């Protein structure tokens, strides 16, 4: 369909409607005293009222157009194909669409396919013409009515304000609905997975061995615990590295650093946050892993190059700017008057920080910490490369492990049958991860908000 034509048409109507509203209101202004709103608002209002119905038509077509064309194709296909249902019908519909679009298909088109394609083509021409006509008609009619409303006392300015707030609401609804859609798709796919494997076996199983769907050797074992354990261990190591370094960096930046030092150090630290995680993965694999292995060997500890420790340390480095930046903001919110009060009583800088600044900022720092943890739990690339991908319950951080995110990657890469538990388990894992980070984020936001209320 010629979306360019539609866009051009809408643009023409936009310009026309705006100009009409603008010039009409200006003409009204001179003889009958002043307008309530400036011509700009009259123009905008007419333009909005003209385009809104047309856009609504377009939206309806976008929503139901493909369903309608699918129904049309099915109506034109022979009954025996339709009766096959499932993938066969799906591929037949796909072939008809390709014939209609003129791209052609693999192999020779069956006569019934060619006929259906021909019919579909006509159907498409007719529908797009209808839509175009409908848009034009709606826009023209609403332009007529919008023009009639233009009057000196029309409160176009207030009305535009109200319509703008609806527009903004609609935009934020997009984000909310997308989240809802993601959650729903996760939930439905996970529910399909749980028809193969019982939730008890999944959530409390200690063995992860899904086998390959292609070998057809049963469905394997899907115990979540080894993966969860790996995730928790890597995240814990990461926080063990990131929290002290990040927090102390924040204390230095917010309390000690002179502005000149701060202006250099802060952006440099934030560059760390801009490094792609895959690059951290290389760094872990090529530099940190071998270093840890040889360092461990030197003191007689067996550390593998790809291990929970390697992934955790590098992930910790990645999270440092996250913690330091958030904590720095929070520490700087502690009122200057409070710090002065402590200094004025003869406390040193560090006494002030320990006894006044940190306690005051503690809720915020806990919030930052929780946000960082949820970041660590969801992190993928570093663990894919550096954790060793070995889904066993192991307490030793020097051994390779696997995490929830790594396993999702493994289960969904390569040739997959999306009806097998081997693939569907990825959705159950994703849902688990989502719920975990959701709760961490909610807790963090709650804590941070309570802290904010205290001072603002």
């Amino acid at each position, binding site marked *: 369909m010629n979306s360019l034509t539609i866009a051009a048409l809408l643009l023409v109507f936009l310009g026309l409607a705006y100009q009409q509203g603008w010039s009409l209101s200006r003409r009204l202004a001179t003889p009958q005293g002043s307008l309530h709103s400036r011509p700009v608002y009259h123009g905008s209002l007419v333009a909005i009222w003209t385009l809104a119905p047309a856009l609504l038509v377009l939206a309806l077509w976008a929503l139901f157009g493909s369903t309608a064309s699918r129904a049309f194709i099915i109506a034109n296909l022979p009954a025996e194909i339709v009766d096959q249902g499932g993938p066969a019908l799906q591929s037949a519909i796909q072939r008809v669409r390709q014939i209609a679009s003129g791209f052609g298909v693999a192999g020779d088109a069956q006569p019934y396919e060619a006929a259906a394609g021909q019919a579909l083509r006509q159907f498409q021409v007719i529908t797009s013409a209808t839509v175009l006509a409908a848009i034009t008609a709606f826009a023209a009619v609403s332009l007529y009515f919008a023009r009639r409303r233009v009057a000196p006392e029309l409160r176009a300015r207030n009305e535009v304000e109200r319509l703008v707030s609806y527009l903004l609401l609609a935009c934020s609804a997009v984000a909310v609905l997308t989240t809802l859609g993601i959650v729903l798709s996760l939930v439905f796919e996970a529910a399909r997975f749980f028809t193969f494997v019982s939730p008890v076996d999944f959530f409390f199983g200690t063995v992860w061995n899904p086998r390959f769907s292609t070998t057809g050797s049963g469905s394997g074992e899907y115990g979540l615990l080894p993966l969860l354990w790996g995730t928790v261990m890597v995240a814990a190591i990461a926080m063990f590295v990131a929290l002290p370094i990040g927090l102390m960096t924040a204390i230095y930046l917010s309390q000690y650093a002179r502005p000149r030092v701060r202006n250099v150090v802060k952006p440099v630290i934030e560059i760390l946050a801009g490094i792609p995680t895959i690059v951290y993965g290389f760094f872990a694999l090529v530099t940190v892993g071998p270093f840890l292995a040889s360092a461990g060997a030197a003191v007689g500890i067996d550390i593998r190059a790809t291990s929970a420790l390697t992934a955790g340390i590098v992930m910790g480095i990645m999270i440092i700017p996250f913690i330091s930046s958030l904590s720095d903001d929070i520490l700087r919110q502690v009122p200057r*008057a*409070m710090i002065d009060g402590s*200094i004025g009583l003869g406390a040193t800088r560090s006494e002030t920080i320990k006894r*006044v600044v940190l306690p*005051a900022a503690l809720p915020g720092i806990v919030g930052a910490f929780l946000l960082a943890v949820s970041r660590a739990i969801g992190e993928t690339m570093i663990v894919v490369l550096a954790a060793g991908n070995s889904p066993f319950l192991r307490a030793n951080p020097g051994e390779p492990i696997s995490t929830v995110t790594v396993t999702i990657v493994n289960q969904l890469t390569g040739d997959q049958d999306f009806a097998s538990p081997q693939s569907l388990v990825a959705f159950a894992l994703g849902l688990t991860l989502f719920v975990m980070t959701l709760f961490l984020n909610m807790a963090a936001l709650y804590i941070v908000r309570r802290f904010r209320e205290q001072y603002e």
Partner: protein
Amino acid sequence: MTHNQETETAAMNMSSSQFVQDQLNASEPRSNEMKTRVIAKDVNVFYGAKQALFDVSVNVPDKAVIAFIGPSGCGKSTFLRCLNRMNDTIEGCRVEGEIRLDGQDVYDPKIDVVELRARVGMVFQKPNPFPKSIFENVAYGPKIHGLASNKTELEEIVVTSLKKAGLFEEVKDRLREPGTGLSGGQQQRLCIARAIAVSPEVILMDEPCSALDPIATAKIEELIDELRANFTIAIVTHSMQQAARVSQRTAFFHLGVLVEEGPTEQIFTAPSDKRTQDYVTGRFG
């Protein structure tokens, strides 16, 4: 302080005012009438390239209240903050000249600033209790300076300080509740109790009543009058009535210059400088 003593002090102030003025003009303060606690001589303060104070010389008398008055931006707060080196915490601030506390140079590089601030307490414009309990707020100073060797002693210090600040009766049942839950006036008295708890010699007050209502202000002023018996107090205030009510001596600042300093009565009734006269009669500022 009894009525008798008060008139006596006032009389003494009156008789010695001209003498003090001469002393200041000569820039060589001697200590023969009112015992001086803090001597400031030719103090210049710069914020970066901008000079905020020009050759200020003031004597702060012992066991009395001195008020620093003047229009906004005249440098009175800046001067106050020189006395306990709070200006050190401001980036780019530079202090020149000489300030002596009991003969000891405050800006001597060898001096322990932390100890100085324990000797020169400070109360700020906005009440700034720590987000801790009332008890912990007052106990803060004694704890960091190790003034109490055990819990009983600490409790004693806290109770005495709260009593001296006239707050004890109001809060004795809720010492464990947060200090931020008190009213503005109570918070400010809590901050005064907090300052008293480390037994300072001098208490600096930077517009302590500017955020308070008239009733709370009256209470603080009453308290200042009582504290004068044991402490040397320097107060910055915007309110000339307040200066007249609480202080024995007054210093008038204008555009970073100390215009005039003398007994409060004299500053308000018979100032020697035209600018002081204009200010105290409300012609500007």
